């Protein structure tokens, strides 16, 4: 059984039909990269997976937590979100809290983890992203790359079953991109289930088990990245690759 599965997923923004029947299965430990042109619905798809965007039809299932239209009440959402972590393009660290407190907050508040234990978790997570020494630093004292790594640690501290990453290197200066990709590569190596949207095509080809090409709100083509790049099955994906270089 897949860890993440969506079926018949539809989303409208007003009259704009943004997701048009998405069926996506992600196995445990799989790394899935979603690519596609701007406006094709990549971010929207990711955001529906943890209920940041409501859906208008269909069903989302993550590790037994189900989200359906009309059944997206607060407890269903909370249940789902405990299983799905997310990292954003803009980091979104809490600026009034230190790096360590950023990571500790949700375990303490949501999981009622005692402070001491939460602190241990936070130290472990920061070490995992190579920032053990930055526990007491505030977000505005960190570089973009460091902030993004703290954001990853913050998500990991809730022990999510799957991590969503929406263009997490797009806001970074080029020289800081690799330190963040390095952390993602390491997570993939550890068997973390990842669903990401990225423009780093070389990286996507290297780490992904599955590539998903979105076009006009649908999954237009998907498969193994090497195979897809070697032999695009649709004209749209071929033209998308063409536009990359």
């Amino acid at each position, binding site marked *: 059984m897949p860890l993440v599965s969506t079926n018949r997923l539809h989303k409208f923004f007003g009259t704009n039909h943004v997701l048009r029947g998405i069926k996506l299965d992600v196995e445990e430990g799989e790394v899935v990269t979603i690519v596609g042109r701007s406006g094709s619905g990549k971010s929207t798809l990711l955001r529906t997976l*943890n*209920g*940041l965007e409501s859906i208008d039809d269909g069903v989302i299932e993550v590790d037994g937590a189900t989200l359906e239209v009309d059944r997206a009440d*607060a407890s269903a*959402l*909370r249940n789902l*979100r*405990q299983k*799905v*972590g*997310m990292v*954003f393009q*803009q980091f*979104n*660290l*809490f*600026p*009034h809290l230190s790096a360590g407190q950023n990571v500790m*907050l*949700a375990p303490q*508040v*949501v999981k009622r983890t005692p402070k001491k234990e939460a602190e241990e978790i936070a130290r472990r997570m920061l070490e995992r992203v190579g920032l053990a020494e930055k526990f007491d630093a505030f977000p*505005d004292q960190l570089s973009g790359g460091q902030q993004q790594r703290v*954001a990853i640690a*913050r*998500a990991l501290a*809730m022990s999510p079953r799957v991590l969503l990453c929406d263009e997490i290197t797009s806001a970074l200066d080029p020289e800081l991109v690799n330190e963040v990709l390095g952390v993602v590569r390491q997570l993939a190596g550890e068997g973390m289930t990842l669903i990401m949207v990225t423009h780093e095509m070389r990286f996507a080809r290297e780490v992904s088990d599955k590539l998903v090409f979105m076009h006009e709100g649908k999954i237009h083509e998907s498969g193994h990245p090497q195979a897809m790049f070697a032999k695009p099955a649709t004209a749209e994906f071929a033209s998308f690759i063409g536009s990359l270089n």
Partner: protein
Amino acid sequence: MMTFSLWDIVRNLLIGGALTLLLSLVAFALGGATGLLVLFARIGKWRAPRALAQMHIELFQGTPLLLQLFTLFFGLSLFGLDVPAWLAAGLGLTLFTSAFLAEIWRGCVEAVPRGQWEASACLAMTYWEQMRHVILPQAMRLSIAPTVGFAVQVVKGTAVTSIIGFAELTKTGSMIANATFQPFLVYSLVALGYFILCYPLSRYAQALERSFHAAR
């Protein structure tokens, strides 16, 4: 005719000043507490409380404080309620303060970027957990300077209650001025009294503003 020494004048003004200070403190404390409730109603999900809060804010922001006091003072007595001046003054200023503070604070809550809501939602926090641990701490930092700034308005606003006969600083001043025939001296002292109350507050607001800009 009775004669007044300077000390007589000052002593009476000090009593009036103390009442002004007391009224300001009460209005600010109660108005702040009410304002917080109005704020949560105004930004909450429920429609009826939201509409009510909106009405409350528009009513008290959209009419002169003087008329609010008149309405309370004379209006309630129409219903046979005998409202003493101090009660009408305290109630009126509290309602006035709550409307303005709710609106100031709403601006601060809304100034917290949407990403903060989204990031905390992704961590499975509930609305009140988000509010308490993520949104309000940031909004509070933003609100300190404008809130202290508004406190100055409240202190000066208390002068209006003299019209319904509450013997705060201004009312005391006008009574003494009438009795002593020294309006210039007395009103200068009254003005000095307000200045002494307000100046530290506005300096404090400025200092906070500056330290906030320096920190970000």
